[in-house]
């Protein structure tokens, strides 16, 4: 366990610390984001190893060096314009300690050296291939190994562990994955705790408790998959981190950077993570940089005085380009991996051939299989509707975004999941039986986070009661900040 901890803290966390500090500034999420960022850099290193040549360690050093220098340069360049957030050190420490404690608690399961089926069949072999260098990796992925198109984040982290400690103990990669799962869940937990930061002392403390409870929920939903080397909790928690920081938290640069980092991590972890990350990235772009809804035309005045619109007004083009940039920048690493797989002729086994079952039959089976794992859906829906109807002002006062963003992210990912099951080539019942409990981890986590976030809204409301729908005058500096956030469009 000490070896895995060393890899996550020193091998991934340390190189990710400066970029995480620049991205998340004084957010408690920094502690959990740094190893996730390290994982992203390792994944990019593995991509370069496969695409260009060389070894993972060599490319990891290069990528980490470039990212750290760029982050430090950005930090120095924006120093004068940086906003000073008034975060109390006690609150910061409380969030870090409590969230850390509650993501560590379920890891006692690592006492049992479990290696899940996919860990044996996919993730550990991929980690070994990455550790083997360019030619071993390229030959193995193109010729022998299953699910070769899966993105490389977790195998790259495992490969770093094998490079440092040897590959005699395969459980090492499983433990690294479990620790990264905890980090991704920690990023979400920090977000939930931060959602209540603008309220009174009691509400702030209760928000930390809610965050801690969510961390336990995340591990409970994932079950054994959280500790036996599967990648599903990692990508789900990372994608949820993108949802919470990018679509729920108040709009600011810090939240955007955390959200983008999480989205990149999800897109580089698994194929489902890629599609979900793209959905979340598009939603974040729509929230932060909405494109103009119409494409205005250039006005032309005729000698008769008649004014007509002709051609295209290119003045709106920068707005569209800005929106496109908000999608392309965080989506680029994931797209690069997909392009690399296409270039190497590595395809996904799920869509290899047609299925003899009809689309309606497959859709019905998929829907009923998925529904069995979404018991929380009606509860979350009821809570969201009641909250939106009666506690909307409290939510706005907490500075949280419109809950519709979160629901669109959840339902879109579910729609993609159903379509995948419908168009896939495997026998539908076998496929559902072997995967649906994992593929529904993301929607389950999103729905649980919705319930917990409304709980935080309740805490905020208790600390600042609304009187007949009118605003209570903000009494403290923090409340005034929250008020300003609530007044800004979400």
């Amino acid at each position, binding site marked *: 366990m000490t070896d895995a901890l060393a890899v996550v803290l020193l091998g991934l966390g340390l190189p990710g610390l400066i970029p995480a500090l620049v991205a998340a500034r004084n957010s408690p999420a920094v502690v959990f984001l740094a190893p996730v960022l390290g994982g992203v850099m390792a994944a990019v290193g593995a991509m370069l190893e496969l695409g260009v040549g060389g070894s993972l360690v060599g490319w990891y050093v290069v990528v980490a060096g470039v990212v750290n220098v760029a982050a430090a340069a950005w930090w120095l360049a924006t120093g004068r314009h940086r906003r000073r957030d008034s975060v109390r050190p006690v609150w910061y420490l409380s969030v870090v300690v409590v969230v850390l404690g509650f993501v560590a608690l379920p890891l006692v399961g690592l006492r049992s050296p479990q290696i899940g089926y996919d860990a044996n069949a996919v993730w550990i072999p991929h980690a*070994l291939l990455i550790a083997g260098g360019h030619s071993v990796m390229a030959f193995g992925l193109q010729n022998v190994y299953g699910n070769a198109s899966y993105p490389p984040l977790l195998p790259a982290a495992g490969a770093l562990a094998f490079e440092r400690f040897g590959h005699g103990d395969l459980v090492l990669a499983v433990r690294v994955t479990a620790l990264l799962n905890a980090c991704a869940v920690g990023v979400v937990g920090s977000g939930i705790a931060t959602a209540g930061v603008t309220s009174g002392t009691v509400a702030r403390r209760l928000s930390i408790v809610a965050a801690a409870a969510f961390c336990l929920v995340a591990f409970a939903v994932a079950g*054994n998959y959280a500790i036996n080397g599967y990648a599903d909790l990692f990508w789900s928690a990372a994608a949820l981190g993108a949802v919470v920081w990018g679509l729920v938290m108040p709009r600011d640069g810090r939240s955007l950077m955390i959200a983008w980092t999480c989205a990149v991590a999800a897109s580089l972890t698994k194929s489902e993570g890629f599609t979900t990350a793209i959905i979340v990235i598009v939603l974040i772009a729509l929230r932060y940089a909405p494109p103009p809804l119409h494409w205005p035309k250039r006005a032309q005045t005729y000698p008769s005085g008649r004014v007509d619109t002709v051609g295209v007004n290119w003045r709106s083009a920068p707005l569209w380009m800005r929106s496109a940039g908000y999608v392309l920048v965080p989506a680029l690493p994931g797209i690069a991996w997909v392009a690399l797989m296409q270039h190497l002729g590595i395809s996904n086994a799920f869509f290899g051939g047609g299925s003899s079952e009809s689309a309606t039959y497959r859709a019905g089976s998929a829907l009923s299989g998925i529904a069995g794992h979404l018991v929380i859906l009606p509860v979350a829906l009821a809570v969201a509707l009641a909250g939106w109807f009666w*506690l909307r002002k409290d939510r706005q006062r907490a500075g949280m975004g419109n809950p519709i963003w979160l629901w669109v992210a959840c339902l879109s990912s579910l729609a993609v999941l159903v379509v995948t099951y419908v168009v896939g080539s495997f026998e539908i019942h076998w496929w559902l039986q072997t995967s649906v409990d994992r593929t529904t981890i993301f929607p389950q986590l999103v729905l649980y986070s919705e319930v917990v976030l409304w709980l935080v809204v309740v805490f905020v409301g208790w600390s600042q009661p609304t009187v007949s729908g009118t605003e209570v005058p903000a009494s403290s500096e923090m409340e005034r900040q929250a008020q300003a956030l609530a007044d800004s469009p979400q």
Partner: protein
Amino acid sequence: MSPQHRRARRGTRSARVVRIVITCVAVASVALCVRSGATATVSDVRQTSVSSWTVADRQQACLARLIETRLPRGTPVYIGSSQGFASQELIELSTLWVVPQPTTASATWVLSLVPGEDCSGETVRLRHP
């Protein structure tokens, strides 16, 4: 009392009730989920589970050692076990020592996992393609 005041008081009372209901529902659903997670974790760390996974872990390490002692490094091999876990496991355990091939044509040896005495009831069988 004016109609606005009456409406306001009703709204405040409704909001209070909704807060209590949301708190109860959220706490109950989170508690139920956490309870199921705790049950799973407790069963994971039970002695029987830990020892059975430790045996499986040692068996894998033993099989990997067996491959390393029987074959020189870099040997091209074909994994001949019937499809499924045995095949995946052999690919995993042989990676970085020997080089698994897509067909027997380029392989020097065919590896398969069979019942035996070497590693807790299993062993690696080698044969020429």
